[in-house]
């Protein structure tokens, strides 16, 4: 495998949109490196250019200048088809609002990323079921996606994002439509993907509450992309959440996180050291 430290390198990236009477610079020239196995949060106010940056990273929006290099592959030097193939194989996507192929059941919807990289149904379905089991929503497999609650949809979409075992999970405001219970559940799932599955998480959010969870932060404001002053390792709050996530009584984990939030980190667990193992060097 690739031993590079960074999974994504953004070099001199610029994006402007040409409108009839003016040109909007959505992203001003910037360079970034997203470390492998990081929990990267891109934050900034609405309309700041976060989504444009994310679209450039996912290979959906060709930048006006500069390049996006994913594991030494320059995304925009690839043909459209190759780039589509790259997305299917390397990225797991979670959106704020979930979209589904309405005619397929949950299991087959989770199969879609596998289908797109060439799997046949009988090959894809066991893997999709496995992914649903990981997120603990395998009981929804035969349902139509439209009957699920928003929280369930978001969890299924997590299964869909990780079914092809991509290196990078990209989450665009994944908690934006959720209440805090479901939001925290999704956040702990994202964290577990990073810690347990060695995924690199790139999350876009305007919710500053989640910032402490990150290991790497990028802020976008009026098209200016800057790396935040990086702390070493996880913040104390993150450790707290991780610790709860990996507490022995995992049925209570979500409740614990909620309690944790409401009581403002008063409860202490004895097994906090586990989280420290995951700290960045």
């Amino acid at each position, binding site marked *: 495998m690739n031993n590079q430290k960074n999974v994504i390198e953004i070099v001199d990236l610029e994006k402007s949109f040409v409108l009839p009477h003016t040109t909007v610079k959505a992203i001003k020239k910037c360079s970034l490196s997203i470390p492998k196995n990081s929990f990267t949060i891109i934050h900034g106010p609405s309309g700041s250019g976060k989504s444009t940056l994310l679209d450039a990273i996912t290979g959906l929006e060709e930048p006006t200048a500069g390049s996006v290099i994913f594991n030494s592959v320059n995304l925009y030097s690839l043909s459209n088809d190759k780039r589509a193939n790259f997305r299917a*194989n390397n990225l797991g996507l979670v959106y704020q609002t979930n979209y589904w192929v309405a005619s397929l059941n949950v299991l087959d919807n989770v199969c879609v990323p596998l289908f*797109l990289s060439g799997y046949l149904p009988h090959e894809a379905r066991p893997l999709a079921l496995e992914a649903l089991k990981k997120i603990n929503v395998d009981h929804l497999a035969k349902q139509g996606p439209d009957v699920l609650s928003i929280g369930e949809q978001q969890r299924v979409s997590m299964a869909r994002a990780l079914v092809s075992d991509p290196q990078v999970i990209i989450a665009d405001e994944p908690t934006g439509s959720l209440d805090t219970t479901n939001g925290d559940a999704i956040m702990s799932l994202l964290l577990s993907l990073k810690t347990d599955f060695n995924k690199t998480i790139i999350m876009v959010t305007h919710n500053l509450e989640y910032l402490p969870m990150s290991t790497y932060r990028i802020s976008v404001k009026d098209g200016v992309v800057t790396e935040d002053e990086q702390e070493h390792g996880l913040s104390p709050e993150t450790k707290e959440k991780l610790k709860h996530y990996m507490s022995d009584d995992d049925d209570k*984990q979500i409740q614990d996180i909620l309690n944790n939030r409401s009581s403002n980190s008063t409860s202490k667990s004895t097994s906090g050291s586990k989280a420290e193992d995951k700290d960045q060097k």
Partner: protein
Amino acid sequence: MNKLGSKQYASKNISPKANNRSSQRKSGRDYIHFRVLLLMSLKNLVFKKLRTTLTIVGVVIGIGAIVFLVSLGLGLQKVVTEQVIGSKSVNTIEVTTSKPQSIKLNKDSVSEFRNYSNVTDVSKTYSFASKIGYKNSNTDAIVYGADSTFLDLSGFRLVAGDQVNIENEDSIIVNTAFLDTVGISNPKDIIGTKLTVTILKDKNQAIDFPLTGDFMKELKVSSVIDSGNSNELFTSQTTFSTIGFRDFSQIKVVVNDSNNIAAVRKQIESKAFTTNSPADTLQQINQVFSILNILLAAAGGIGMTIAILGMFNTLTISLLERTKEIGLLVSLGARQRDIKRLFIFEAILLSAMGAVIGIILAWVAGFAVNTFAVNLAYSRGVKESFSVFYLPLWLAIYIMAFAVIIGLVVVAFPAKRASRISPIKALRRE
């Protein structure tokens, strides 16, 4: 770096084994398999049952109307052809002479025709205007001195008696028209009866007449055939050739393929003979019916036009409804051509299913109408069964191909639009 991998997990959701599988999975194929696209198209059609059903019904009506009307046209064409041409071999050229005194059809002409390329057989006949004596009265008739090839080519239907055998010099074959003239209702009654055949010497006769007086012979009726509406009798030509008749009244030239008829005819006509072929008649019949069939297909085409509009409407609505779905597929890694194919498969499924059902229903309807027509004709005295509907396999295959092509044409625009959907715009947050 990752020590957690070896630690005991409390969470039952997370399998530690997963940690070992860090490389991405490979299916061995790069892009979506067409079977998966087909499955997705099919599921989408099933998902929108009512709309799919209505669209298919439209195609069924359109295709069904075309198939019904065209097979009616083809059936009529077949009935007419059978009536006019009968079982005559179409690949024959009938050679006669318009100037019997100078241009003669004789043994030399027969051997000459035989040597032409693509000619497989040559048959010759004498024919004479004659009087037939039966029960003290004479009937005018034409007597043929034929050979078995001639009879084979003419394809007459045996009505009574033994197998048609022309080789016996003492026997004669009569036709049903002759029986009608002499007033015999049961064809079996005449079998074995002796007829007196008299051929009068006539200067205007096309045949070079070797006898000084009339030719007269008593012949026994061996069988009865159906050969047409004029009185005709057939006997062995040896009877005439041994006496010294040299000129034939007609020669039939058999050509191996109908495409070669024109060339052989040209060759024969260059020797100043007159030619005629059932192919001419057939061509005229086909000409008339090809126009009729086009008119019938055009009438059915009106229904098809409406079906096409229905299909276009369905596909366009499907496109508009699924903008976000398509945006999702593209963002997850579908290629433009995958999206296009998704729509193309849907369109082909719609039109092909409609076509199959339409063809089957048209066949059933044709069968029903034909049964009704045959029964009606039977009650009016037509004893023979007939079929005014003819749905050959090639028509079914053409119609299927036509339906698929229509599907492809109709889907071209929606598919192109679908493949151009920008996932960013489609999935943009409000």
